[in-house]
């Protein structure tokens, strides 16, 4: 713990174990429970070239028995403790998460650790794990909004980072236990991994317990996936027999560790944060073109990009596309002082609300460490939003222009 942050946050512990795993513990006296986020630096970007989806399949498989317990015995053990458990594979990181009442933590920690430290990876469980991974791909067929998200990522990021997290059905169907075990041996280990635990707890005691559960973990570190490469701005039309046309835009932002990132976040908030944000007003409030229009920031270590999405009936898709594109172009010219004041107020409430749940706060700690290298206290995060001037916000917007975004249209006639 650096002296400055330790003084500012006496209830936070930050330790990196000898095996490379970093542990963050934050006490919130009086909170209802405890939340745990355990993140490993391996994802679809690290999948072997001939087995896209290897990480997603591994995450299914390692859940199916660990630490001497079958999948069902593990689920029952978690439920007996009242633990809500989740997790999955991501683009550059994958993880497991859990929420529980505070007194369940001592028994839940070793159970959670088992999945990473001691998965069985039984041959006779492989078939079912593979089937679940394949079904997750097939289930996208009836979900156009999720298909848009996949298509947008694939057309925004080139190479490894743009790969589908779900993987490739043909490659997964041909995969073998040996191949997936080899992938795990080459990529899953404590180096660069992170566990964040937040809640009603004694931070020193929990730090020691967590270290005790995970210091014996050994494994390789995933090779660096390399820098993100951006695909050129272009319009892509994808034919789909659905009710609405899905429209999605994306464009590169400043890297997440860039000091201008809070200023940029304030500027981007002018698009869809709040009922009077520009895209909401122009698309929904004035024209009724869509039920919802949403924008967000996606990030991996070293790179971030913005997305904006909406869905509209096909005969109004052209108008919606033009209205939204005009607003994206206009944003490069900057925001007004009033818009900035509203963005500050709205983002402040969002930050403070998220930090009020253990899961939300654990997520903030994980993102801070993965994307910026160091955790921030809640007040520090709020101060980062209070600081930037309008000139700084507008300079950040100019440095990450959205005048020429990638656009994906998915719907009836969109492929023509």
């Amino acid at each position, binding site marked *: 713990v650096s002296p400055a942050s330790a003084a500012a946050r006496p209830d936070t512990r930050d330790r990196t174990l000898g095996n490379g795993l970093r542990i963050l513990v934050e006490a919130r006296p009086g*909170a209802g429970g405890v939340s745990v986020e355990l993140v490993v630096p391996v994802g679809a970007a690290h999948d072997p070239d001939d087995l896209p989806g290897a990480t997603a399949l591994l995450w299914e498989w390692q859940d199916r028995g660990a630490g001497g317990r079958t999948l069902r015995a593990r689920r029952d053990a978690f439920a*007996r403790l009242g633990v*809500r458990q989740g997790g999955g594979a991501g683009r550059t990181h994958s993880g497991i998460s859990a929420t529980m009442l505070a007194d369940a933590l001592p028994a839940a920690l070793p159970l959670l650790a088992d999945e990473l430290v001691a998965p069985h990876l039984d041959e006779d469980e492989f078939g079912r794990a593979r089937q679940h991974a394949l079904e997750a791909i097939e*289930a996208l067929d009836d979900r156009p909004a999720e298909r848009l998200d996949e298509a947008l990522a694939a057309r925004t990021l080139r190479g490894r980072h743009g790969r589908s997290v779900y993987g490739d059905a043909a490659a997964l169907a041909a995969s073998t236990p040996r191949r997936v075990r080899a992938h795990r041996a080459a990529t899953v280990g404590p180096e660069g991994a992170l566990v964040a635990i937040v809640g009603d707890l004694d931070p020193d005691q929990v730090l020691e317990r967590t270290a005790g559960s995970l210091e014996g973990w050994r494994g390789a570190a995933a090779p660096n996936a390399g820098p993100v490469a951006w695909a050129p701005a272009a319009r892509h039309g994808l034919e789909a027999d659905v009710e609405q046309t899905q429209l999605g835009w994306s464009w590169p932002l400043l890297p997440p560790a860039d000091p201008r990132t809070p200023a940029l976040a304030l500027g981007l908030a002018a698009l869809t944060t709040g009922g009077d944000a520009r895209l*909401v007003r122009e698309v929904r409030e004035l024209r009724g073109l869509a039920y919802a229009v949403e924008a967000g920031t996606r990030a991996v270590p070293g790179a971030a990009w913005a997305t904006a999405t909406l869905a509209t*009936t096909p005969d109004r898709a052209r108008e919606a596309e033009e209205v939204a594109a005009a607003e994206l172009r206009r944003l490069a010219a900057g925001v007004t002082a009033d818009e900035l*004041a509203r963005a500050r107020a709205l983002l402040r409430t969002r930050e403070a609300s998220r930090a009020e749940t253990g899961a939300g706060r654990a997520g903030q700690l994980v993102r801070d460490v993965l994307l910026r290298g160091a955790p921030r206290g809640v007040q520090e995060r709020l101060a980062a939003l209070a600081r930037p001037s309008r000139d700084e916000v507008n300079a950040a917007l100019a440095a990450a222009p959205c005048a020429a975004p990638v656009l994906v249209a998915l719907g009836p006639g969109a492929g023509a």
Partner: protein
Amino acid sequence: VRAAPHAPARDVRRLRSGATLLLEPRPGAATASAVWLVPVGSRDEPAPLAGISHALEHLAFRGFGEVDGSALNRRLDELGARVNAFTSEDRTAFYGTVAPEHLGPFLELLGGMLRPSLRAADVEVERRVILEEIAMADDEPDGRAADAVAAAAYGDHPLGRPILGTRASVDALRPEDLRTWARARYRAEALTVAVAGRVDAEEVAERVEAATAGAAEPAPGPAGPAREAPPWHAGTHRRADRRLRRVHGALLAPGVPQDADERVAAELLAHVLGEPGQGALHWGLVDPGLADRAGLQHEAGDGLGAFAGGFETVPAREEQVRARFLELLRRAQDRPLDPEAWTRAARTRATDLALQAETPLGRAMALADAWLERGQPDDPREAVARVLATPPGAGEALLARRPFDSAALVALGPPPEGGEAP
């Protein structure tokens, strides 16, 4: 399992306006949240007005008095209000979270939203937004299957209609219909306001009193027709949509109402049978790879409740999954519940209740819902204790009524090979 640590001070006040105010200050909170709940929803609507409660909820964001929609939204944004609303079968809720220093003006705006202007031009634009929302719902087959099974089970009763209404009914809504509906339904005496977080109780009471004093002038006559019990039609149905690639199943079976003592048992029973990743349906359908989703929950409403379930699978396994889904539920009616599974369900549910109490918004929601449903303010510690004290026998008593023998089930999927399904 330890109960939730909060022992919050709660305060119930009947305001001069007729509204009920529930207060739960938490001095250490970083935010303050408010929920305004009105007991009106789709089940109160005559067929020609289907969707009017939901439309009115949308139009509440388009201004009141001298404040137009743009000014209202801008004012909410200036307060940093993270605000939203929903309409269900039996209630409409407006809710949001702000920094504590902005709570007063936020409450004033929420109060104003219950007196919406309903300008003709705004109604036209919002109509288009709602038609887009209906189109969006058409691209969500799980929700469509749920609507289809409600129609099958409840027939012509309003509970058998989608909350959003239909394209035709939304097309036909007129500003005067909305005005009449607002006057009859958004009345202060029907309103429950719950406020939680870092709040000054006296200031909140004054603000809500002032904000509700001008709530809709009472319309002549009762607040609306009494809610009638719907008919119930059991049966299994197939609906075809050539655009779908997979089969989406939805089930309804009789449950218990929101104010019934058996409500907690019904929730735990649904958990034992159909909690995703844990319940009997998971181990019987999802884990063996027959379905990629299968679950069941209990939904308690005013005067009635239902077990609501669903599944998703590929067309080749539709028959098998549908039969097994029903078999797993019906077979549970013929044998004792596993007490271990019951305890696991109770502990998981206790965690959910305790974690809902983490945020002021979670508390305000729980307070408002409990008041509307059972006429008492929610206490998270009592709620957790009640869940942990409910024995498996209470679930077996519900199973003895054999709810799944009279289930309604709809499978929505691509037409069977060789022709269109009816």
